[in-house]
């Protein structure tokens, strides 16, 4: 995720390399107009499409409700009747995982969006603002870093109560400082790059410089952060559930299912494996897709 962001600062501003890259990619483009789709890309798109469909229309995949409690059917192993088995309350795990897609993906996307959104604001303010402002922003970020993020989430939820909304905000807040630092770095890079300096010398307006030189440098890594962050945020939310705070029952949320299923890991493995699988699938698909898009961006 950070390969662009932290590893090639010197080269970004170096004219020789840019020209060489331009020639190479022009050559590729002439032959690559067909935009060959790699199998990894295709699979990730399919997986994400499936997850989005499951979020929007869960009843397409299962007729059983996620909250249909039936204590008499508790702890049934996966079978034809119950593809993913039943949980401690006799609820169908497959139904819960499918119906939980919308909740979990929402948490993942919202928390990431919140974190990245805050990060962009902080990063832009710090990177573009005058020195004193940057100083304050950097100090603020340092203080946030010095706080264990799980604790921030814990305290936030203790104050505002557990639930999906507070979990999302807690996780988003916890991830913001990390992203903010990276974005600020990118903004500074762009600001100090040869192109930006040239633009200033040429008398271009501040807004134009920001839009044409800073933002593109930020949006690229931003996208990667968002895709990588998806899995992370769902996992963070599940750690909060593990500590007893998080999505409120009977919410069918993958992370919460993972946390509550842990107690039964020795006698009902299906309670953790399937929600965990979906978390991992979302993370892998999002990351792979993000990487491919970034790869395409680099090639064009």
């Amino acid at each position, binding site marked *: 995720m950070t390969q662009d962001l932290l590893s090639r600062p010197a080269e970004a501003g170096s004219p020789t390399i840019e020209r060489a890259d331009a020639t190479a990619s022009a050559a590729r483009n002439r032959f690559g107009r067909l935009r060959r789709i790699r199998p990894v890309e295709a699979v990730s798109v399919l997986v994400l499409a499936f997850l989005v469909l499951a979020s929007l229309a869960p009843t397409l995949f299962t007729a059983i409700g996620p*909250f249909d409690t039936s*204590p008499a059917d508790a702890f049934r192993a996966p079978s034809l009747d119950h593809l993913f088995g039943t949980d401690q309350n006799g609820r169908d795990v497959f139904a819960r995982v499918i119906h939980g897609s919308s909740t979990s993906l929402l948490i993942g996307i919202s928390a990431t969006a919140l974190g990245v959104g805050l990060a962009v604001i902080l990063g832009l303010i710090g990177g573009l603002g005058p020195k004193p402002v940057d100083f304050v922003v950097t100090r603020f970020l340092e203080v946030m870093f010095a706080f264990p993020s799980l604790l921030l989430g814990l305290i936030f939820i203790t104050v505002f109560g*557990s639930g999906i909304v507070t979990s999302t905000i807690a996780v988003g807040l916890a991830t913001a400082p990390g992203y903010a630092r990276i974005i600020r770095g990118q903004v500074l890079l762009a600001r100090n790059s040869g192109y930006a300096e040239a633009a200033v010398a040429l008398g271009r307006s501040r807004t134009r410089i920001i839009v044409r030189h800073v933002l593109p440098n930020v949006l690229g890594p931003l996208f990667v952060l968002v895709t990588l962050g998806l899995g992370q945020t769902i996992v963070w939310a599940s750690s909060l559930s593990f500590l007893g705070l998080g999505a409120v*029952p009977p919410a069918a949320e993958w992370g919460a299912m993972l946390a509550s299923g842990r107690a039964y890991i020795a006698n009902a493995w299906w309670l953790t494996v399937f929600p965990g699988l979906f978390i991992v699938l979302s993370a892998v698909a999002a990351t792979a897709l993000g990487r491919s898009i970034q790869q395409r961006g680099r090639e064009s």
Partner: protein
Amino acid sequence: MSAFTKTTASIGAAALLIALAACSAEPASSSTDATPVSGGTLTFASGDAEPTCLDPAQSGNVPQALVSTQYIESLFYQSEDGEIEPWLASGWELSEDGLDYTITAQSGISFSDGTAFDAEAIKANIDYIRDPATKSSTGAYALAKVDSVEVTDNTTAVIHLTSPDSALLESLSQVWLPIQSPTALERGLEANCESPVGTGPFIVESWEKQSSITLVRNDDYTSPPPGASHTGPAYLDSIVWKFIPDDASRFAALQTGEVDVVDRVAPESLAALEAHSSLTFEGSSRPGYPESLVLNSTKAPFDDVKVREAFIRSLDIDAGLESVYFGSVDRSNSVLSTATKYGIETPDAYSTDVDKAKELLDEAGWTLGSDGIREKDGESLTVSFLINGDQVLAAQKALYEQFQASAKQVGIEVKLNSVDVATRYAQLAEWDYDIASAYYTKNSADVLRLIFDSANTELVGGYHSNTTGIADKDVDKLLRAAAESADEDERTDLYAEAQEIVAAGYYQVPIFDQQTRLGIKNTVVHGTRVIPALSLPTFYDSWLTR
């Protein structure tokens, strides 16, 4: 396939084979010798929170009671039938007016620091518990009716009461009213928290906070409780008392042999426990008010008895216990534990009847809304259920979710409010809940006064033990009278009547008795018993084969 990949694959396959082989291997169980042998260290892992103070007179909760049972004893011993027997005290006499208890101290007993146990020690301890500076809660409350203690001779102490108290002897059988060395008490509260001195079979040697407590054998031990299987010093050299709060980890430690005995065995671990022939489960009911759901009758909607009854009737507790508790706990139909005298069962008050529930709600004016939740005057029938997020067993959480689902069937929306312990107490204190879970460990039917007497809706030290808000004059009268009566038959009738009224008011629904749930490595540890008063394990008779 590269060489690297090949190696990786074969390592993986080998690991899988080893794992499968090991899984099927059963640890051999050794034949146990009938004769106890002396020696060895027993490792015990508790699932309760670590106590903040090892002196059970200061504050007084279950974690403290669990560990101090090993090194502190009480004046009296309560048997399984609830009968009071002598222990440190050799006898007692109650005056005619019921206001004076004359207690005789057994002779020949000393504390582990050499101080003699006598009537002065009895007085010193009761004064200590009653002293506000000690910050005792459980003990002090139990001694609320005590006016003073008088020492008439070396072995006789007289406790003067302000009003008769039929529960006093029962209280004096609890380790929350401990008998500690007066010399030790004089060291000050902090020192007594670190290393209390009692007459028990073990002595506190060291306490590494957030790690473990080490207890060593008291070689001069001379006061075994009634029911003990031997006399003289304990068999064990020492006990390492650990704290492993995570249920799965604690049980895993038992399986691997890192610990010899664990408590709070989770229901989901029972199957694995029973599969191992080297592990034994020992469960016993604790006395007092069982694990229950209490309904806040001080505010809507549970201020309406019909709504309360409807909620209770919507629950299918039996199905819940069968599923998430794997049928390992018995349903309770009484507001008193099976281990406490004077309890009566009122199953009709708590039986499932979904149709009746719906009928009651209709009668109460709550009509079914389009979303399945009932409404009245623009308000929806939504109640909040206060849960202790970090201390409740997974099985309990699952049970509460089942209750939520069954309440929804009749149109009641239950919101589960899972908070940490401090927040929970803050909300309880402010009556900021509709449903809460509750229990109270006490070896006397007098616990009903704590739970159901209207006087206990008052906040005391940030807590009111009456969590239902019940304020019934008849119940108050019955319970207070029973607390003063020394006549068994009278007490039986009074308590029975009070329990009937409480049940008929649908203020709460008991689920199961609190339990001591021990997991024991039977190839290593033998002879573990519980002290019936609070059903707490004692390792006095335990011995090891390794």
